[in-house]
């Protein structure tokens, strides 16, 4: 079987921008294909992660983005799974290459979240919840995660201050990441004193609304070697859907995420202890705590320690560095592109590009990471989870 690798990545600027979604995509493609043959000379298929047609009144992102990349007549389709759309697109690209269907597939994600203002963003995100019970009860994305957070704080020793420290850590990481939406560091009081959104969550516990696009070129290792590009192995992929209504799931043990991660570990032949860096779906601070446990990095009830350097975490924790990009929280969260931005971060970490970032790396972060886990969720928490394990492949590229 061909061995799928990431051969190139690109992303637009993240945050409010004047560019429509398709133009954000063009910026990402320009970056990814700099120095490479045009997409039409390489790419056999395209998958486009996109959360909602409400923002720009546009569906058909497979067709549209293929056209804008110059890819006429390739199979192309939009992939939808709310915020997991990006990693679902990546997963399809991985399986296509692995199965020998195509030598190169373009996984894309785009979301133009600011186009309709806050009300459109709120309503679009709420469409990911069960319509009959959840939406009709008036829940929002922050309030759904607040239900998880309230229960997590009830069952563990974690406090609102601990959750705030996760936000502080992720803003600190983002401040070093030139791709991040937020460049400023914050302190715990900034979080604790920010506007209540859904208690116990406050504005700075929440990822922002973001415009952005990202692309990941997945090829066979052979094709990447011919192109002479730095490559990273897509060593494992896993996905799992769980109930759409959060009330019906285990709200403090995120089972779907655990299962998806274990599937990806098994494919890659690694365990949680092997993971050096992880981009987990920290749409809200509590998510990083919950997903640290689901991924097997932290003993049950201690995921909230993800902001601490490894030496200061409880026994049983691994040495993983979490959300080195700044995470959804501070790197930014253009919903359909987020899963691919996680892959962009892992590619840059595992190829060494990220090592050149300004300032001091996070305390305890590995200087040359070799293995990364990506956890991308859609809906509330594990309504759907997609996991990927990436490993450095210095022998493939240049």
């Amino acid at each position, binding site marked *: 079987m061909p061995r799928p690798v990431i051969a190139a990545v690109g992303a637009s600027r993240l945050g409010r921008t004047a560019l429509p979604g398709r133009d954000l995509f063009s910026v990402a493609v320009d970056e990814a294909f700099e120095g490479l043959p045009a997409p039409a000379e390489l790419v056999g298929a395209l998958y486009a992660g996109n959360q909602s047609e409400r923002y720009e009144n546009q569906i058909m992102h497979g067709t549209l983005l293929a056209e804008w990349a110059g890819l006429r007549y390739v199979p192309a389709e939009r992939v939808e799974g709310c915020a997991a759309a990006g990693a679902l697109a990546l997963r399809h690209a991985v399986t296509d290459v692995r199965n020998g269907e195509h030598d190169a597939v373009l996984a894309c994600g785009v979301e133009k979240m600011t186009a309709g203002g806050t*009300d459109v963003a709120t*309503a679009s995100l709420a469409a990911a919840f069960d319509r009959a*019970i959840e939406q009709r009860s008036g829940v*929002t994305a922050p309030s759904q995660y607040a239900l998880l957070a309230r229960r997590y704080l009830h069952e563990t020793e974690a406090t609102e201050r601990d959750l705030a420290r996760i936000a502080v850590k992720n803003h600190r990481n983002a401040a070093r990441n030139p791709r991040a939406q937020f460049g400023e560091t914050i302190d715990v009081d900034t979080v604790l004193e920010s506007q209540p959104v859904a*208690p116990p969550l406050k504005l700075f516990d929440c990822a922002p609304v973001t415009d952005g696009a990202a692309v990941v070129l997945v090829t066979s290792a052979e094709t990447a070697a011919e192109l002479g590009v730095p490559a990273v192995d897509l060593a494992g992929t896993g996905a799992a859907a769980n109930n759409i209504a959060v*009330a*019906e799931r285990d709200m403090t043990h995120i089972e779907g995420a655990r299962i998806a991660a274990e599937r990806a570990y098994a494919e890659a032949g690694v365990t949680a202890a092997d993971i050096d860096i992880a981009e987990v779906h920290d749409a809200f601070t509590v998510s990083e705590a919950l997903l640290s446990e689901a991924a097997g990095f932290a003993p049950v009830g201690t995921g909230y320690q993800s902001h601490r350097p490894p030496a200061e975490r409880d026994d049983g924790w691994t040495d993983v560095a979490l959300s080195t990009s700044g995470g959804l929280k501070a790197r930014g969260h253009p919903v359909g592109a987020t899963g691919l931005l996680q892959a962009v971060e892992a590619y840059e970490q595992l190829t060494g590009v990220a090592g050149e970032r300004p300032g001091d790396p996070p305390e305890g972060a590995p200087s040359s990471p070799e293995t990364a886990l990506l956890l991308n969720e859609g809906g509330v928490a594990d309504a759907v989870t997609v996991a990927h394990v990436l490993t450095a492949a210095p022998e493939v590229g240049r």
Partner: protein
Amino acid sequence: MSRDRALDAEHPLTLPGFFDALADGDLLGGVCADCGQVLLPPRPACYACGSRDVTVAEQPREGTVYTHTAVHTPPPALADDAPYTVAVVELDGGGRLLGRVDADHDDVTIGDPVELRVREPTAAEREAALDYEAAWPVHLFEPR
């Protein structure tokens, strides 16, 4: 598997059937004939074990608060209601259901006993409703 069931809009394994009963004050749950899982609202398949042998039984309307929050930034259609309290309630029959709570958030704690009641949708809720939802009641929880 119950292949002889006719899943029309009167059947409680469909949403119209469930909400019709709820409008009359009956909270119907699916109950998996194989593993006993309670399904709220009822549906044709059990998410716990995959069985499609699901019966329907009235569920107790009393329960306790499992977790709670308040919505300060509501969807546009409910802007006038905010902030309002939302909880996941563990019903005495074993199912869990999300709903609004008719109480200030500061007065609600995990473990509080509550009871489900139904009301007619408000004008704003009717405005936001889909065609087929227009007559569906809205459920909420009251402290008891």
